[in-house]
């Protein structure tokens, strides 16, 4: 049969049936479609901007901002827009980091409490988780702000704790540590403690290796360091740090550390909301380490603490890390709800800038870039961390 004979391959395929050509054509068509759409939007935008009498550029960033920002790093209304935006960025990072730390601690405690053998503790934790993760965060933040913090007593009737913490409708006033002249002596003690600890650590490590026994190499070093630090604290003449207490001066407190009502409400909202989610992450992470694993650990003679440290935690951490990352990212993104209560985070400041300059497009670009950079950095770090614990665990 003639048609069985091999013929030359490539030249005979019409292009509309050739897979390779079709692949390219399809993608080119797709890109052209996207570009056309973008082009139409761009033309529309230019038309719209002309109608508003605006041109698209970033020069406005060097103009004087002219609006005040209630808190954050040093800033005057006479500073530039760029500086104002930076203040917002720093505020977002600040509330995110503090929020992440507090939410992690809260979530860890509650997550472990949910697995407690104590019926009451277990159920209080469950009720907390179910209540707070099923109510919108914005509602919670508004509640803490308008229904709790703004309803607190006035400055003169502040709640006072331990004589140094004052809580009133203007915010929270905390004592702040101030270094004294004796601080160097204590720091010297600390340095000595570190050296001692390192030596003890190495000695014990070697000893363990020699005995070919696994163990906790920091078992001597840690207490030694703490002992030195503790003793050094009291040996230092006049103590290394003193607390600077907030004091009522005129109509307000001065000194110490001050948390504004907006910051406090945002932080409380973020921490309580995210904490509930982190608790679930922690709980399911620990539960994912199968019961059999623990039993196997007991069977080979590990005690409760060794089981937790050597078997359960490393495996649970590996399960926990990815969902924990997305909770951290959620918290960071949710900090943009600051705009609802007037905390000057990057979105809120950007919004004010838009209202003042009308340059909404470049400012939106800046806002989105900032969030993307924060998100990508966080997830890059967590991916690295994730890889690391995966390597160690295997």
């Amino acid at each position: 049969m003639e048609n069985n004979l091999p013929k030359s391959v490539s030249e005979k395929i019409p292009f509309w049936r050739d897979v390779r050509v079709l692949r390219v054509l399809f993608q080119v068509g797709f890109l052209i479609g996207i570009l056309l759409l973008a082009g139409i939007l761009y033309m529309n935008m230019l038309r719209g901007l002309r109608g508003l009498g605006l041109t698209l550029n970033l020069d406005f960033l060097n103009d004087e901002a002219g609006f005040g920002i209630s808190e954050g790093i040093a800033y005057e209304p006479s500073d530039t827009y760029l500086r104002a935006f930076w203040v917002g960025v720093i505020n977002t990072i600040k509330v995110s980091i503090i929020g992440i730390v507090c939410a992690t601690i809260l979530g860890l405690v509650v997550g472990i409490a949910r697995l407690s053998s104590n019926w009451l503790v277990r159920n209080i934790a469950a009720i907390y988780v179910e209540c707070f993760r099923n109510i919108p965060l914005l509602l919670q933040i508004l509640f803490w702000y308008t229904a709790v913090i703004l309803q607190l007593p006035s400055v003169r009737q502040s709640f006072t704790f331990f004589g140094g913490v004052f809580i009133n409708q203007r915010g929270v006033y905390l004592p702040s540590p101030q270094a004294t002249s004796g601080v160097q002596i204590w720091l010297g003690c600390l340095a000595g403690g570190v050296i001692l600890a390192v030596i003890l650590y190495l000695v014990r490590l070697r000893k363990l290796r020699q005995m070919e026994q696994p163990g906790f190499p920091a078992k001597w070093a840690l207490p030694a360091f703490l002992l030195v630090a503790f003793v050094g604290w009291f040996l230092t003449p006049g103590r290394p740090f003193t607390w600077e207490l907030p004091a009522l001066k005129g109509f307000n407190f001065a000194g110490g550390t001050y948390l504004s009502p907006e910051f406090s409400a945002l932080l409380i909202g973020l921490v309580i909301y995210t904490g509930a989610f982190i608790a679930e992450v922690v709980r399911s992470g620990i539960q994912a380490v199968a019961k059999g694993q623990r039993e196997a650990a007991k069977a080979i003679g590990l005690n409760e603490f060794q089981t937790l440290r050597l078997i359960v935690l490393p495996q649970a951490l590996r399960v926990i890390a990815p969902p924990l990352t997305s909770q951290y990212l959620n918290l960071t993104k949710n900090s943009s709800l600051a705009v609802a209560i007037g905390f000057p985070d990057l979105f809120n400041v950007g919004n004010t800038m838009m209202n003042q300059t009308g340059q909404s497009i470049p400012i939106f670009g800046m806002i989105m870039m900032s969030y993307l950079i924060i998100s990508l950095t966080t997830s890059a770090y967590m991916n690295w961390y994730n890889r690391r614990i995966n390597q160690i665990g295997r």
Partner: protein
Amino acid sequence: MADLENTLDDSIIICKDVHKWFDDFHVLKGITTAFKKGEKVVICGPSGSGKSTFIRTINRLEIHQRGRIIVDGIELSDDLRNIDRIRQEVGMVFQQFNLFPHLSVLQNVTLSPIWVKKLSKSEAESEALALLERVGIEEQAHKFPAQISGGQQQRVAIARALAMQPKIMLFDEPTSALDPEMINEVLDVMRELAASGMTMLVVTHEMGFAREVADRVIFMDEGAIVEEAAPGVFFDNPQNERTQLFISQTLQH
């Protein structure tokens, strides 16, 4: 080894210098062979020898990068129409059955007649029931794959492939994932199929089946055909050293 040019007339599959790489790994190193209409060929060889990859190139589940494959006069190339035609002429049975778990046995078999050959539902179903009867599981037609045994699943997979009325059937280790007691029920169906005159390419470790059913046995190693012969010659008087080693190892089990 049969001369390629002489077999062209009645060959349904022609492979000429077929090469394939996975990234830098050279899986197929110039396969040249041909299969006659109605021929039953068993392909064997150690794991990683490229035998599965080879039969997967014949219905273009794997794309060969050099050489030519012509199936029933259709050149396997980047031509979309040719690929569609080949897939209808060549049926395939997989090691892991690959039944569609969300469809009933009957729906598994009627799926491509309805959607690809555009048969009416009732036509497709009566044909499917006939096929299921042929492989001996007509009473399971309305069950789902997860509800039947592995051997039954593989027989459904054979019926599903036959539903497209292919001229050629490819079997990629059809019994390797089965419990021992189920292997025979699948082999019986394959024997019956062979007796009906189907062109069959079978990758398998079942040497008894090869000896009994095959017209020809091909031994592959390291991406090349090492030896091909009629089963009598292949098993009793293998020429190549590697074939001898493989046969002695396989028959020991």
